């Protein structure tokens, strides 16, 4: 194979956005080594600039005519561009909110950002990974960095415990995933590329054999862990409570988006023959997540734990789009993940801000907050109401689109369950709003009584404020002005050959067309 041919096969241009993240990552590390702590004043901005540059580079990747690169290991189609954008954006906002948080915890900022960028890198590669080894490596890059981030505040016993729990569960679920992946390799006669596996399985006439089903279940165990779908959710509440809050913000958006990207790619291209089965399994997961996430969240007293259960429930909503498996289904997933980014990061910014100022995140401690900190109250109220799906906020349109897509695909029961559980969710979201807004001055909690005067001048608070305001604005108007976002999500599904192929086959399991190489 001569060099030109090899270069065209490698087609390294598709991973320019990741390249920028790598350069930023190295830059952050090296600057930290040379300048030491004194660089921490601006190193966060360097990382944000790098991530934004990466998003700009992603813009030029849109509608790439030749998306397959690295001999088929990476697919830069519009689906992956969309998910990589969501992940990079979530990392950028996470860095904005973590500058002050990490500073205050007395740990090094540059190391934190470096690990976060590695996680981002893993997640971005995962969104486009088209080959088993590549999938596994990027999944591990994401996971290992996540374990490190969870235990980053290493003097805090809760953070340590969370890291241990996350590590043990994460490593074992990756092992289960790996076992499923190795089964796929064996079943398909030694193929590692996703489309080749589907062909191999079909050629070996193993259509719906037990082996394929076992591989499917094992793979879903790994995916369910990443998207924290019940019953693979057990780590979520504990990790969310123990880990540093910016990390949670990233795990709840970036890591979850990566999990969904993996789910779409893997399930549609490898398992078209058992589409009915994986839809069924995901229906069960969605039902469990919706019920468990929303009902258990009712009984939480800690803000972060409540948001943990809420994120389990929100995963259940997103799964409706995945199960629908139509054009509208996939694009509603993407749209929801996009608005979920804004609402969740806005909410977490407020939680961080509150805990920076008062040092606690108990829900009852928020009472009477509107008098002391109106911006925080507004931000947290709007983001929680949006998570509950109240019009005219972004979350309302996201949920409507999911339900609409689900109903079109005939998932009546699931949509009705989604509707009913969203009433339940309104209850626990509005409980926090009630604490902040409704309580009289004499019912103020101790934390609010001793609330420090608001100043944005401490290092790292300004970026937090910027992140809060930007996500707040996006949460409030991304619904009303959602047409461009809808078009974006729709186009990214329409321009992805893999999904178009799968939609042709998915209603009936009997026929399989050759996948795009």
């Amino acid at each position: 194979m001569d060099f030109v041919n090899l270069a065209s096969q490698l087609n390294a241009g598709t991973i320019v956005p990741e390249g920028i993240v790598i350069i930023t990552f190295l830059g952050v590390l090296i600057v930290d080594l040379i300048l030491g702590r004194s660089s921490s004043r601006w190193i966060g901005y360097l990382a944000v600039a790098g991530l934004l540059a990466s998003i700009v580079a992603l813009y030029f990747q849109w509608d790439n005519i030749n998306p397959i690169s690295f001999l088929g290991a990476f697919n830069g189609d519009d689906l992956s561009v969309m998910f990589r954008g969501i992940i990079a954006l979530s990392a950028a906002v996470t860095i904005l909110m973590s500058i002050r948080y990490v500073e205050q915890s007395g740990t090094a900022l540059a190391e934190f950002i470096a690990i976060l960028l590695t996680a981002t890198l893993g997640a971005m590669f995962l969104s486009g990974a088209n080959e088993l080894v590549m999938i596994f490596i990027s999944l591990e890059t994401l996971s290992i960095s996540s374990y490190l981030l969870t235990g980053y505040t290493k003097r805090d016993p809760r953070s340590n415990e969370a890291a241990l729990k996350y590590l043990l569960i994460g490593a074992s679920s990756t092992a289960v995933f790996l076992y499923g992946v190795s089964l796929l390799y064996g079943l398909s006669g030694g193929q590692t590329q996703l489309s080749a596996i589907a062909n191999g399985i079909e050629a070996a006439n193993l259509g719906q054999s037990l082996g394929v089903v076992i591989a499917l279940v094992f793979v879903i165990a790994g995916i369910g862990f990443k998207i924290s779908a019940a019953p693979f959710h057990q780590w979520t509440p504990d990790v969310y409570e123990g880990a540093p809050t910016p990390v949670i913000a990233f795990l709840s958006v970036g890591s979850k988006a990566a999990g969904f990207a993996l789910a779409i790619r893997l399930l549609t291209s490898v398992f078209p023959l058992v589409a009915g089965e994986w839809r069924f399994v995901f229906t069960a997961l969605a039902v469990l997540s919706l019920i468990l996430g929303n009902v258990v969240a009712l009984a939480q007293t800690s803000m972060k734990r409540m948001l943990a259960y809420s994120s389990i429930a929100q995963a259940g909503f997103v799964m409706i789009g995945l199960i629908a498996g139509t054009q509208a289904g996939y694009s509603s997933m993407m749209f929801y993940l996009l608005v979920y980014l804004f609402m969740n990061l806005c909410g977490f910014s407020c939680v961080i801000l509150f805990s920076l100022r008062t040092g606690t995140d108990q829900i009852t401690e928020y009472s009477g907050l509107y008098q002391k900190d109106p911006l925080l109250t507004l931000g947290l109220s709007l983001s929680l109401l949006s998570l509950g799906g109240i019009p005219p906020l972004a979350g309302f349109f996201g949920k409507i689109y999911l339900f609409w897509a689900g109903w079109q695909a005939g998932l009546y029961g699931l949509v009705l369950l989604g509707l009913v559980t969203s009433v339940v969710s309104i209850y626990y979201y509005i409980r926090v709003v009630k604490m902040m807004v409704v309580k009289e001055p004499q019912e103020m909690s101790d934390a609010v009584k001793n609330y420090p005067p608001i100043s944005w001048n401490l290092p790292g608070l300004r970026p937090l404020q910027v992140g809060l305001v930007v996500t707040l604005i996006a949460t409030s108007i991304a619904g009303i002005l959602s047409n461009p976002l809808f078009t974006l999500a729709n186009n990214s599904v329409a321009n992805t050959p893999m999904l178009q192929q799968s939609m042709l086959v998915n209603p009936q399991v009997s026929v399989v067309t050759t996948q795009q190489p």
Partner: protein
Amino acid sequence: MLSTLIWVPMLGAAIIGCLPKNVSSRQIRLSALLITGAMLLWTFWVMAQFDIHQPGFQLTEYLPWIETLGLNYQLGVDGISLVMVALNSLITWIAIYSSHDNTERPRLFYSMILLISGGVAGAFVAQNLLLFFLFYELELVPFYLLISIWGGDKRSYAATKFLLYTALSGILILAAFLGLVWLTHATSFAYESLMGQMLPLGLQIILLSLLLVGFGIKIPLVPLHTWLPDTYVAASAPVAMLLGGVLAKLGTYGIFRFGLGLFPEAWATLAPWLAIWATVSVLYGAAAAIAQKDIKRMVAYSSIGHMGYVLLGAAAHTSLSLVGAVSQMVAHGLILAILFNLVGVIEEKIGTRDLNVLNGLLNPIRGLPSISALLILSGMASAGIPGMAGFIAEFLVFQGSYAEFPIPTLLCVVGTGLTAVYFVILLNRTCFGKLDNAIANFPKVKVSERIPALILATLIFILGVQPAWLVRWSEQTVTTMVSTIPTVTNIAHNLEKQHLKM
């Protein structure tokens, strides 16, 4: 034109919410009054532009919005929505007028009321199902806050109950809308394109039942009403006026527009049951009101009874009974608003709402004579005494539905009698008798506190002696609506047409 009705209050809400700290509560109230006053004037202008001889939607506006969802910004009024919009503008203005000069946290209070007003106007003029739902759900959080911040005892419980019930009602409605659009394979939620749908009767009945339960919670109809007494009692007077005067009308309007308008065949099938349901509601409301010891609770239960007449009129679906039902919506809005206003004044001046404590308020010197006189007047209006708007509306309903459902109609007439009973109890215990010397040092009622009730009383009286001004707006619309409700021959005819198409 209609957009102004929605966006001026919303914009006003945003402006009021952002007013600086040194603006006093009084000034904020004044600016809210100005905004809603402008809106009221604009409503008159819209009414002047409205052509009452034309049955379809008028003053329509269309903007493409989110095509993917079939959600477009589509507005329009017909006779039914026009009177509802007018009622909304009026009651909002009156509610703000009857709020206190020194309300706590005035920015939030008035911006929430304005938000509700804009949202309700939007729901009444929306000609897209999803747009209607959006505006419908928009009332949820502002009302929750209005009840739970400025309410009375047990406000937290009441507000949460209201929130959950209303959210549930929204879901049922959304499920029905999604079902309708998907089953008819329509590409958008536009109202007019869904009007001629041809679903099998069984499906129609299922969807209609979802709508009935969804809107029945909001109206409310008897077993779905349990949120209402708690919420009305816990809400402060202006909020209760909005809740009963306007929000309940969203439910009946929804039943008219979407139940009757979109499912005429299923409606014709279910009508007898609905008439029975309405009767149960009327009798239950009246009987429960008789048993109450709290005047606000009494008024709340009277509301359940009066909304039952609307359902009876709608169930009979003759053009007379429908006109009656629309008039009843207006009359009930006005009467409930005046009652809540007066009860609010009494509670404020005397400090209790207990029927066993109140006495002799009609005493010209030490009592509250003007308020008591107005209370007697509005009690009579509510009970259906001729000369006032309540009588006209109820009479139209009864006359229109007697031919269809004689027995339910007669039972509802009995319900009117029971209404008179509990209002006489109420008036007897509050206005008549002797003042208790130990507590009878009530603060004076200021002129400005009388004005809202006086305006409403005048309106009730004028519409009672000159009912044409109440009825003329919706006559044409309602007649057209009735003509779409099929008789058996019509159904057969439609089926034949379908066959020919195939």
